[in-house]
């Protein structure tokens, strides 16, 4: 997020695209409701009628995978109406003219044709977003989990640049992180191309700095992204995989493919708190601790570093992950000795100035937003106040490319997947909470009432949903929250895992799978 959650309260316009905020980030949605009470207007773009639609001014129900067309269409209207922020574009951006050409064909009429959104609504949304200089954009996986996810993100960035809705309080671009510490994992360098703090491995100076700090010589070659690891294993190139707290067997697309790939490994180590579907395939399973059993920090979606405190002892012989990693590292000949998590954090802070000013003591009551370079720095609520780090930012022309696997004759429905309010991700935690299971323990597919009628499907009837990759049997939930031709399956349920049928087509840059669009067919059970 370039803004903080607090700043939402002061926004005039909240543009939510591809995020079911009320269910996936409920407490952020609370803040949005607070803004609405203060007069903010919400625009929602989503193929599903998500719960926040009730509070929205405009609901753009677009066809899955047509985000670029919608956003470019909105930009087109903003330009035509002269609502663009000329001063900002001149002072802080490059490539405007070339980009402007690229969106000329995205008239509201054309955008409407592609997206299925009435052109009046596209215009209305453009006037609302473009008419405000305190507007925030919010998105999650509905934007990124596409074969053109990077394009979607670029299109959003263009829109913000066009209106200058970035770099000020109450206005910016806000991807909402889906997991407690995605931000921290990224910040800490768990990425194949950068060291901690997004410092690039291909810059010799940087590499040298880390080699000196870590007393080791470091590899040059860029590593594999998670989805590429599965591919590489499948091809027999990757021989060993050490997984800490992940469950790709449920969370990766095309489960059968994942299973085969993991099966080809010579050695699989899984470190987790439960014997997950992935751990069950491992050669060695290492019992680890959960958040209540250790000390450390989580960095949330708004870049706020917050303390995690140990409250209880772990069960049995389960050990803190830090201990396990250190022990293993020592056995591999690389000593990593730390007396506490705090010491590790300090080392990270020494290597990355954005965290240098933060200490456990400073965040004992309230977290601090990075960048926070010095001990007396208050932290940074919104980014780019003093300009972009690279001076000027370029507009990126983005073409509309349809989803990799559109619905067709054989597979006439579009499947989109996601989370629901009650369960979390692969469910290894929430599905072990008896109360949540009692209330929301059953997998289901959301199907439009008209489609259900045509297929003769009754509420709660078990039906077969299949794609070119596999099939599942699942109860039908008839609803108007999905349009005709679209079905939705929450990803959490292993007994009818959506990822048995999802497509493993990837975004070419981010290598993010297209969970939001694949073609399926629906049949009644015999």
């Amino acid at each position, binding site marked *: 997020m370039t803004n903080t959650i607090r700043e939402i309260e002061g926004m005039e316009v909240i543009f939510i695209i591809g995020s079911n905020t009320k269910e996936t980030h409920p407490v952020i949605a609370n803040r949005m409701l607070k803004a609405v009470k203060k007069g903010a207007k919400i625009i929602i773009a989503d193929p599903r009628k998500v719960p926040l639609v009730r509070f929205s001014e405009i609901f753009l129900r677009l066809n899955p995978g047509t985000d670029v067309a919608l956003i470019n269409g909105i930009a087109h209207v903003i330009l035509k109406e002269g609502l663009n922020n000329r001063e900002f574009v001149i002072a802080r951006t490059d490539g405007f003219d070339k980009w402007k050409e690229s969106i000329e064909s995205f008239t509201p009429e054309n955008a409407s044709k592609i997206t299925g959104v009435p052109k009046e609504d596209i215009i209305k949304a453009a006037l609302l977003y473009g008419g405000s200089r305190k507007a925030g954009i919010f998105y999650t996986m509905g934007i990124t989990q596409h074969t053109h996810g990077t394009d979607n993100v670029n299109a959003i960035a263009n829109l913000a640049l066009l209106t200058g809705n970035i770099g000020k309080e109450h206005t910016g671009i806000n991807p909402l992180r889906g997991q407690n510490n*995605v931000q921290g994992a990224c910040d*800490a360098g768990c990425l194949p191309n950068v060291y901690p703090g997004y410092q690039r491995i291909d810059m010799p100076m940087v590499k040298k700095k880390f080699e000196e700090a870590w007393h080791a010589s470091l590899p040059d070659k860029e590593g*594999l992204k998670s989805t590429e690891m599965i591919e590489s294993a499948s091809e027999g190139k990757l021989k060993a995989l050490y997984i*800490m707290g992940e469950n790709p067997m449920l969370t990766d697309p095309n489960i059968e493919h994942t*299973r085969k790939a993991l099966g080809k490994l010579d050695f699989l180590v899984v470190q987790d708190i439960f014997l997950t579907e992935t751990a069950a395939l*491992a050669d060695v399973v290492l019992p680890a601790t959960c*958040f209540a059993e250790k000390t*450390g920090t*989580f960095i949330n979606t708004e870049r706020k570093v917050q303390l995690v405190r140990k409250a209880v002892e772990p069960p049995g012989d389960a050990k803190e992950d830090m201990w396990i990693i250190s022990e293993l590292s020592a056995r*591999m000949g690389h000593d990593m000795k730390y007396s506490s998590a705090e010491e590790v954090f300090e080392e990270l802070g020494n290597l990355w100035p954005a965290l240098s000013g933060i200490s456990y003591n400073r965040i004992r009551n309230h977290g601090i937003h990075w960048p926070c370079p010095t001990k007396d720095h208050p932290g940074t609520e919104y980014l780019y106040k003093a300009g972009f780090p690279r001076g000027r930012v370029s507009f990126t022309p983005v073409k509309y490319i349809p989803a990799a696997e559109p619905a067709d004759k054989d597979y006439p429905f579009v499947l989109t997947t996601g989370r629901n309010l009650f369960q979390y991700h692969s469910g290894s935690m929430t599905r072990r909470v008896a109360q949540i299971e009692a209330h929301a323990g059953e997998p289901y597919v959301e199907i439009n009432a008209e489609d259900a009628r045509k297929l003769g499907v009754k509420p709660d009837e078990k039906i077969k949903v299949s794609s070119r990759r596999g099939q599942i049997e699942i109860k039908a939930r008839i609803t108007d929250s999905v349009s005709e031709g679209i079905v939705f399956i929450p990803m959490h349920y292993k007994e009818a895992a959506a990822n048995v049928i999802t497509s493993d087509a990837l975004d070419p840059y981010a290598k993010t799978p297209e969970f939001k669009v694949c073609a399926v067919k629906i049949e009644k059970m015999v």
Partner: protein
Amino acid sequence: MVKVTIDSKTIEVAEGTTVLEAARMLNIQIPTLCHHPKLTPFGGCRMCIVEVKGVPRPLTSCTTPVSEGMEVTTSSPEIEELRKTVLELILSDHPNDCMICEKAGDCTLQELAYFYGIKENRFAGERRVYEKRDGNPFIERDMEKCILCGRCVKVCEEVQGVEAIDFTYRGFKSKICPPFEKDLKCEFCGQCVAVCPTGALTGKMWALRGRQKDIKEVDTTCAYCGTGCNITLHVRANEVIRVTSKEDKWNEGWLCVKGRFGYTFINSPDRLKKPLIRIETKDEGRRTKDEKQEGISRPSSLVPHLSSLFREATWDEALDYTAQRLKEIKGKHGPDAIAGLSSARCTTEENYLFQKFVRAGLGTNNIDHCARL
């Protein structure tokens, strides 16, 4: 700015400030029951009444905005008499079962009864009797303990935007309930539980799990989505028995169903307690025997025949074995034949160590986590 005098102390406050807020700025205590600082004022319980010079009847300080030159008296024999009557009236319609009440020790009503020394009740009479019959697994609704302060109704509407409950009926029979007295149908965020000043709304899962005095509270950060709500774990005998959130934290005490009620996985019997080493010979796809026979392509069921797949090991054994295998593979195929997949659910420190291990210990940049999924 408006100048106001409360109990002979003068303060200047912003226009629109209530008398109660101004008094609290002056550190003057006024008892309240229905008031909640994050919700719109209600003025129902009447405990916060004060005398305002020139106004013939007492006014509720929570609803009354200050005005220039206002002179307020927060306590007088008359006011305390009225507060006592009000409190006695509430208690006359409240089950006298603090000894088994989940809220005891943390109950505003109980505390006020204590401070006002109410033991006998002049107004004893009929008490509302309700059957507890809500089938939801999260929220216990004991409406006999409800004092109709309206906090739950307001939090549900104003903060959560759900409007699952409201006042119904009239007179003594007034009641807060879902439409048509059906089971609660909502998001189960438990915001109502958090703001309830009595034992009317509690978590079903923390019933009979421990009294306040035995509980250790630990402030930490929620481990579910990326919002990072500040939570407080209530620990008794090495077990998390309840989760709450404090109002002065950035999330204002609000949580979602997962954050508030989704904590019992910590003590799940399924937790891994020993390192495990595989005993079953592997084949492609690592299917369990049953699955191979049936030839089905479902993902393996949870904890498949644990004992037939793994044996328990000591840490030394497991770690030595792992290191040995990784060394072998590294030696045979090079470091890039190994990869590490880290977790967005672990701490920043663990992630830092993990990538450091993969890069410096294993010698490869094959490190990623689940950000894309």
